[in-house]
């Protein structure tokens, strides 16, 4: 299929159409509003539903209702909007509904800013809303990958009857890149005998997250856990870059940061430095085993993020005991240049860096 030059947000909207989604409910927020603008034009062309809701709270609950009626449905938002949707996400997870969420992350906390960030990693991978649940979370690093992840997100949401999030950042949303739409490969939605579409010649279908009986609630929690275990077994995705041989530093980065880190690594490799990259593609399930194995061939690990240190906690968890873990982050919407990252890697190589979470920060030590 011919490639088309598209802005990330518009490509995400088109990917949802290609995935067979005809029901989109959303509320405008920078830097993802082009998804809504694109679908406001595009949905009518395919007899789909575009609904601009009164709030993210309402939009996310409309997803609950649409998914309950058996259709593929999704929304897109950015960090503060996802916070408002977190109530519904919790209910959607508890009620085991397939829904796709796009978060084009901007800096926070609070109103923060509108520039790219990776500061919603905790919210996306550890919960966000209340209760014991997880989303399946993808972290695309290119517009093409965002397209592929959106399509995969619909398929896996249906497979697991679980909300799936594509966690991009402002760069993914705003950047233009060539993309191809592998529409022929999209699997149609499976039968949904659980959907609430009218009780005819069968018992009642009931979609709820309320289980007042403790044994029933425990059962629901255990069913959810079993799904997360299955995801950890079957859905882990990652990319290894120059990690086959022994390394002095293994860089772990996801999304757009991994692209910049690659450029830095290439430059250092040209200088003979032994550096590789492990890029988590699924953020939940986190590629713990892959990070552990790659770190086992390295002397140290450096996590690079657009945050003050979130994914690095999972890197600590994954890294072999005693492995020195370092962290480099930029925040506020500032993006590191490849040189910023290669400087940090050089610090680790030279023994000038401070171990993350073990030693005090330099300013604290002085």
């Amino acid at each position, binding site marked *: 299929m011919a490639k088309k030059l598209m802005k990330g947000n518009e490509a995400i909207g088109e990917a949802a159409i290609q995935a067979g989604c005809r029901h989109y*409910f959303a509320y405008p927020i920078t830097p993802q509003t082009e998804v809504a603008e694109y679908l406001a034009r595009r949905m009518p062309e395919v007899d789909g539903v575009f609904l601009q809701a009164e709030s993210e709270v309402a939009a996310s609950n409309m997803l609950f*209702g649409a998914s309950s009626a058996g259709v593929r449905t999704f929304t897109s938002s950015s960090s503060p909007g996802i916070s408002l949707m977190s109530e519904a996400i919790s209910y959607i997870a508890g009620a085991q509904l397939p829904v796709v969420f796009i978060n084009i992350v901007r800096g926070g906390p609070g109103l923060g800013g509108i520039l790219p960030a990776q500061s919603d990693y905790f919210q996306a991978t550890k919960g966000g809303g209340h209760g014991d649940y997880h989303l399946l979370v993808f972290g695309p690093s290119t517009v093409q990958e965002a397209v592929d992840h959106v399509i995969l997100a619909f398929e896996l949401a249906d497979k697991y009857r679980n909300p799936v999030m594509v966690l991009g950042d402002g760069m993914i949303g705003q950047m233009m890149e060539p993309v191809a739409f592998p529409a022929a490969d999209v699997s149609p939605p499976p039968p949904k005998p659980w959907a*609430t579409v009218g009780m005819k010649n069968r018992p009642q279908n*009931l*979609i709820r997250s309320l289980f007042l009986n403790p044994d029933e609630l425990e059962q629901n929690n255990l069913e959810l856990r079993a799904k997360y275990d299955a995801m950890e077994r079957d859905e882990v995705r990652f990319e290894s870059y120059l990690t086959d041989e022994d390394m002095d530093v293994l860089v772990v980065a996801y999304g757009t940061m991994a692209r910049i880190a690659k450029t830095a690594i290439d430059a250092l490799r040209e200088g003979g430095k032994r550096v590789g990259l492990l890029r988590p593609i699924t953020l939940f399930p986190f590629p713990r085993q892959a990070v552990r194995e790659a770190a086992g061939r390295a002397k140290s690990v450096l996590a690079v993020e657009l945050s003050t240190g979130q994914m690095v906690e999972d890197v600590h968890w994954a890294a072999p005991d005693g492995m020195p873990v370092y962290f480099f982050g930029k925040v506020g919407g500032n993006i590191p240049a490849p040189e910023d990252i290669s400087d940090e890697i050089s610090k680790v190589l030279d023994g000038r860096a401070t171990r993350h979470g073990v030693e005090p920060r330099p300013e604290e030590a002085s």
Partner: protein
Amino acid sequence: MTATTIFGTPASLTDRITHYCPGCTHGIIHRLVAESLDELGLRETTVGIAPVGCAVLAYHYFACDFQEAAHGRAPALATGTKRARPDLTVFTYQGDGDLASIGTAELIHAANRGEKITIIFVNNAIYGMTGGQMAPTTMPGQVTSTSPAGRDVELAGYPLRVAELVATLRTPSFVERVSVHSPRHIINAKRAVRQAFEYQKEGRCFSLVEVLSTCPTNWGLTPLEALKWLEENMLPYYPLGVKKSPDDEV
């Protein structure tokens, strides 16, 4: 000689014993909804949305598909379901804490978009499930657990008249306030509920029926006293009648 059943459980109700308190009017209102669905032949194509509040378990009592919403969000769920499947009959069943407090935005905008859904709004002037707290619909001076000296309108404002509020919207809809404190009023309430579902069946408009209801337990009254209290205190403030009809000139 053959027996003829002239009164029985509607097919749209299950035979499950409800958890509602003695004297509560939820049972009556459930029945009015169920009879309407039966009479209009809608049961097999209906999806109900339960609220958070006393009616949270309504799905046990209606013999149709159901969803259970987050607090106040039922009109948003109903919107999603109806937009996905316009052929279904979709109704929400909400109390005054759910609809008139935490769910006002979802209510107003569902009504303003003209979603072809039906909302059964049960107004008993108090939070029942959580044990009798002040609601936006609580009467001036009414004592509740969070207005122990009576609702002070200087601090809490006046009770929200939901039916009148929704009727101000320009989008065509059907809005009526009814009561169930006497057999005569129950018969009239049935007509309104059925009318609301008829409008949905015809694909005509958004419909909301506000039903004045009692809460003997949290009002601290016997069931009979509660019916009298509704008549004497709520009726003057919450006038009954059709507030808006799709036939009204826009």
